[in-house]
Structures are given as structure tokens and as C-alpha cells.
């Protein structure tokens, strides 16, 4: 039966995450934005332990679970709802919780039991992007060559979240660049492995507390068993496509989570803007039709409508994942919409609150800085539009680029 309200158990997750966000993240959000580069913020250490104990690590992208037969509201929906709340508190801090890296999610999804055992408790980053390729994940230039019992990695990675503070990194590399997508595999590299170095930690506009590092692999040797998934390169065109499709599918589960970050930041901005405006007697009541309202009310209604639309798209994509319904199109839809809406809302909230919005006295300006990357990373707006378009039009990536 059609119901778009959250059930109690999801609301519980929401409430707990909100408490964490309001109690721990919000009060220190400005401080760490100012500090920018630092060790793992000490306030986050107990948070990481708590979440690990609660089994939240790597749960992103986990499937349904719970609910017995029939429809399920599981890990994906919990993830989306929890992420929204935490990002509401501070998206940068959420991305800095030790043990909750994107690498952890990958290990949890496709790691072998041994890998899960060994790396599951570490703080694992993910390194995909390279200087020469942005959203083009198939153009990975980093190579992995098997020499005896070791893989030898060479190449450069950028924009690896938590790669400086993390204990290990999941690295995408190609076994054979002449083959393309199908030869791309991921590898586990522990911090301190000779040949891997952090080139720099980026200075960024937003998400400043979150470390974004560039890594260099210079004959970096790792044990043979540190490859994730099947070490063979598929030998038919069909199988190769499928193999890379499998890699890309992991994004189907993470895109709604990034959309959720956008939702959280945007809602934070909208709520704060409303608070500030209420003090000046602007109190939207939904009691006049749109064009009979004041300009400020109309702006707030528009933002609220766009935010709610993005939220429902994101919940739908998560709900599909929980219920094992292929959701590649919907995952991109929610990421595209939430990304652009999040950026629009946060920027607009700064504007409608004038000097109060632009000031560092409030967090609105920070939200407007943080939100921008959420329309870029994990696939830009344009990449999401491409994916949606290919689904809707029935096109291959060759026809529509």
C-alpha cells in the first residue's frame, strides 16, 4: 500500500542520528571548518567506536534485511535517513568519522571474508579519481602488475576522502590498460606501505574538516591476496561489460547516500534561514496561494517543495535497493536532483538572509560552501543526467556520451 511516511524503526534511526548531529557535530562544525587540516577530530573518536559497535560501518549499500516477507525498509533506507541527519549536523564531520570511510563500504560489499576480517575494523578510504580523469572512472591509468606474490602498483590518485587520516586505502587500478574497463580491479593498501605516499591534502572551499588527499603509488608492493573480487579479467566482451557493470553498480547504492548528504545540508540551511527570518516576523503559514504570498514566503515554499521532492526521490531509490529492485536510473535521478537542489537552496538561503546569511556568525555560508561538492563528487550532475538519459532513451554509452 502506498505510504511515503517513515516507519517507526526508521524514525528511530533518524532520531538517534539527529541527536548525534545536533549534540556532537553542530557545536563543533564552525570550529573545525576554521581549523581545516588536523588529525581526526577528537570528538569523533567515540562516535566512530559507537557506530562500529552498532554495526553501522559499511552498512551503506547493504541490502534490505528486517521486516520478514514482503516489502522491506532496510539498510539503504536507514542509511539515507541517517546520513541526511548527520549531514544536517555537519557533512564534513560526518565524512571524517573514523571507520566509516567509503573504502569500508566497498570492503563490506565485495571483500572476501579474510579481507573483511583484516580490514573491517580499520578506517578505509577509497581512491578512484586520477588527475587525468574526473567522472570517467573507466579511464584509470594506475596500473597493478603481479610480480610473484605481490601486486606492484604505480600511479597517482586524487580526491581520496580520508586517505590521509585513514588506516588503509582501497585503490582502483588496471591490470591491463589495453583492455579498458574490464581490467579495472580494486586493491587494499595499508597505510605505511612503502611506495605509497600522500602527496598533499587539498585546501578546499568546503567540507574543510574532511581530508581529501592526493596519493602517489611508486612501485608500491602489496600482497597478492589484497585484490578485491575476482582477479581474472573476463575474456568475452559480454563478460567484460558485466564485470565493469558490477563495479559501477556499487555506485547505485552510494549515489542515494550522497544525495542524502545534499538533503541534510539543504535542510539545515532552510531550517536556519527560517529561524533567522522568523525573528524578523517572516512566518510562512502556507495559507495564501503562491503568488499571493510575499516574495520571501514564495521563495521558502519553492525551496521546501524542491527539497521534499529530492527527499522522496532519494527514499524511493533506497527503498528499491532494499527491495532488490534494480535502481540505477532512480539512484542517478535522486543524486542529480538532490545535488542541484541542495546547491540552489543553500545559496538562496544565504541570499535571502542578507548579511546574516553571508556572515560567519551563522552556518548558512558554510552550508553554501559545503553543498557545492555534493553536486560533483560520486558523479557530477552531468554524469547523472547521462545515466538517466541512457536509461530513458535506451542508449548505450557509445551512442550518448
Amino acid at each position: 500500500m502506498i505510504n511515503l511516511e517513515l516507519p517507526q524503526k526508521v524514525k528511530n534511526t533518524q532520531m538517534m542520528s539527529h541527536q548525534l548531529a545536533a549534540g556532537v557535530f553542530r557545536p563543533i562544525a564552525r570550529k573545525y571548518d576554521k581549523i581545516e587540516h588536523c588529525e581526526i577530530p577528537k570528538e569523533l573518536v567515540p562516535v566512530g567506536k559507537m557506530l562500529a559497535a552498532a554495526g553501522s560501518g559499511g552498512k551503506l549499500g547493504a541490502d534490505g534485511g528486517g521486516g520478514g516477507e514482503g516489502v522491506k525498509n532496510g539498510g539503504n533506507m536507514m542509511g539515507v535517513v541517517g546520513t541526511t541527519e548527520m549531514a544536517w549536523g555537519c557533512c564534513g564531520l560526518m565524512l571524517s568519522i573514523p571507520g566509516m570511510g567509503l573504502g569500508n563500504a566497498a570492503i563490506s560489499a565485495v571483500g572476501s571474508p579474510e579481507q573483511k576480517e583484516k580490514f573491517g575494523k580499520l578506517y578505509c578510504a577509497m581512491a578512484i579519481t586520477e588527475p587525468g580523469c574526473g567522472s570517467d572512472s573507466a579511464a584509470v591509468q594506475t596500473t597493478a602488475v603481479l610480480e610473484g606474490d605481490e601486486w606492484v602498483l604505480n600511479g597517482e590518485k586524487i580526491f581520496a576522502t580520508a586517505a590521509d587520516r585513514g588506516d588503509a586505502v582501497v585503490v582502483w587500478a588496471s591490470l591491463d590498460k589495453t583492455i579498458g574497463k574490464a581490467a579495472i580491479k580494486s586493491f587494499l593498501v595499508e597505510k605505511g606501505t612503502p611506495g605509497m605516499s600522500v602527496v598533499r591534502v587539498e585546501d578546499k572551499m568546503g567540507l574543510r574538516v574532511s581530508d581529501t588527499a592526493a596519493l602517489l603509488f611508486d612501485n608500491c608492493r602489496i600482497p597478492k591476496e589484497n585484490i578485491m573480487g575476482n582477479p581474472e579479467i573476463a575474456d568475452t566482451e559480454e563478460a567484460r561489460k558485466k564485470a565493469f557493470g558490477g563495479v559501477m553498480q556499487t555506485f547505485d547504492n552510494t549515489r542515494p547516500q550522497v544525495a542524502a548528504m545534499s538533503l541534510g545540508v539543504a535542510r539545515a540551511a532552510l531550517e536556519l534561514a527560517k529561524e533567522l527570518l522568523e525573528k524578523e516576523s517572516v512566518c510562512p503559514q502556507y495559507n495564501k496561494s503562491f503568488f499571493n504570498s510575499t516574495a520571501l514566503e514564495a521563495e521558502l515554499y519553492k525551496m521546501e517543495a524542491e527539497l521534499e521532492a529530492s527527499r522522496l526521490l532519494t527514499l524511493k531509490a533506497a527503498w528499491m535497493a532494499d527491495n532488490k529492485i534494480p535502481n540505477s536510473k532512480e539512484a542517478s535521478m535522486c543524486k542529480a536532483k538532490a545535488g542541484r537542489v541542495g546547491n540552489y537552496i543553500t545559496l538562496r538561503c544565504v541570499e535571502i538572509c542578507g548579511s546574516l546569511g553571508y556572515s560567519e556568525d551563522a552556518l548558512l555560508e558554510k552550508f553554501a560552501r559545503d553543498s557545492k561538492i555534493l553536486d560533483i563528487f560520486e558523479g557530477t550532475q552531468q554524469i547523472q543526467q547521462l545515466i538517466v538519459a541512457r536509461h530513458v532513451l535506451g542508449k548505450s554509452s557509445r551512442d550518448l556520451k
Partner: protein
Amino acid sequence: MTAQAIDLLFDLNLTEEQRITRESLIRFSNVEVQSISRLSDEDGAVPADFYDKTAQLGLSLLSIPEEFGGAGMPRSPLSNMLSLEDLGKGDMSLALGTMTPLSFVNVLLDQGSESQQEKYLSEIADEKFKVGTIALMEPKATFEATELDTTADKTDAGYILNGEKSMVALAEDALSILVVAQCDGVISAFVVERGAEGLAIQKEEFMGLRPLGLYRVTLTNTLVSDSARVGGSDNPFDVQRVVDLGNIGLCAAAVGCCQAVLDYVVPYVNERVAFGEPISNRQSVAFMVADMATEIEAMRLMVYRAASRAEQGLGFHKEAYLAKVLVADKAMEIGTNGVQLLGGHGFTREHPVEMWYRNLRSVGILQGVAVV
């Protein structure tokens, strides 16, 4: 409506009953509605037998109590909303026309007394298409449903109505018109019956929704009895509920229409070749289509949520309001982009996109129709 007793999961699946109803409605929409859509637009009228065909779907009858000639099924805003989406995909005008009696029925079921239901619904509950309709809007650019110029004055003989109503669907054929008016400082509603004295009905012409039949209804000292007043001082007429349920219905029809746009342009842009390739290989075309698909899904979910809350007896004013804000904006965007994607061809009446452009412009305007 069922109160939310149990802790429902987030779910987008239809009930078995809804699924079956949808299947037959979609079939009806494809076969009977879409096929006459263009013709009806050109004629500014529906074929003579169309509405009687819709009456056989029994939509208006469904929730009327059995003792008044209906099927006595539970009143379901959600199912009505789905019907509007399905019919709207075939044709927005015909969808709104088909649902006009149901709008009237729903308001009386929600807010009418038992005796009013008996009196006014019994005559609607027929296997032929019988019309009741709602007269809410007034000919004003800044129209606001809670601030009306139409007045009702209490006299010994009853209420005397004066004012001008606009965009009243199917008024000419209506057995009963529910006129919303200002009475003693509050918004109230009165059922005015066919042929009442001082009641003048005149066809209005609009940019779109041409086959729907929208009328100017003028009331000049029209007297109705006390019993014609829906709601009273102790249970005042809830005009906001009418507006909100109407917005849900209208938006659902618009979502259906937008889906029709998308379904039409996809094969078109895939087949149309320019500069040596299908135009859908160009990002400007493909992204426009992608955004259409995304926004349709977004609109649909907004409308579903509002309807589902109404169904469950939860508050739904804000949800309906926001759905309307979004749909008024995005539906028109889809309407204009539908034409754009067909280029010059889209501007001709050989293709339906120009009609959808005109019909979708109504979404930001119309109120008090398609009350689900």
C-alpha cells in the same frame, strides 16, 4: 479513510485492488480517451457518448452509500488520485470532466449532512453520467479561495446568493452546483440546483482544456433554502480541504499528462535524425529528456505522499500545497520542452505536444476541480 493504526512501512506498491483498477483504467485511458483527445480539443467538446462510457467505470458511484444508490465502498483519495493520473495520461480535459461529478460527491461525502447526501447524491448515482459540480473560483487574477467576493446573505426564506464564479466545470449540465461563498464573515457552501432563479451559465473559452467545458456562473439574488447550506456555524465549511484535495487531483492529472509528453518524445528524438545522427545523441536533447523523467518522478512522489496522507487521515495541507508549487512549475517546463524537442513540428496541431503545452498551463491556475 483508515486512521494510521499500524506502523506502515514506506512502500510504493499498489494494493491488489488498486492494481486491478489501474489496469482497467489505463486500458480505458489508452483506448477511449487518448484516441479522441485531439478531436475533442479541435471541437472544444467531447463526443456525445463519451461521458456515459465513463459512467460505466462507476468512479462517481463507488463511494456513495448503498442506500443512496452507490456502491458503498470506502472513500479513497488515493485511488481517486491514481485514476486522475491514468486518465490524465490519456487527456487532461477529459480526465477532469470525467471526475467532475466525483468532486462534487466527495465534498458532500466529506462535509455534507446525511440528508444532503441523500438529496443530492441519489440523483448523481446513476448508470448514465449525471453531473454535480463545484463553483469555487472567481474571475480575478489574485483569486484566493479563502477571500471570496461571492456572498450569501441569510434571510427568513433562506440564503440569497450573489456573485460571479469562473471555471466551473460542466456547469451547464449540472443538476447541482456547490457554490462557495462568503457568509457572515466565514466561507460557506451552498448547493444551487439546476434552473434556480437568478442563475446564469455561460461558456468560457480558455487557452487549453478546451473540451472540458468551463463556465462562468453568475448568481443574481439566487435564493436557496437553509438546508442547502453545507456545514454550518458549528461545523464550518472547510474550503481548504476542497482546495487541497482539488490540488492533489489536478496535479495527478498533470503528472499523467507529463508522462504522456515523455512517452511521446522518447521515440521521436530517437528516430529524428539531424546532422547525421538521432537528435537524442545530443546532450542538450538527452538531458532535457532525463530532467523530464526525473521531475515527473519527483512530482508523482509529491502527489502520492499528499494523497496517501489524506487516505490515512493524516494532515495533508502542507504536502498538497508543496506538491502544487512543484507541479505548477515543472509540469509547465515539461510542457514547453515537449514542444521544443519536436521543433517546428511541435508547434503544429499534427502532434499532441502543443495541446499538452496549453493544457499544462492550467495547473498553476485551476482550483476546486478534481477533488479526490
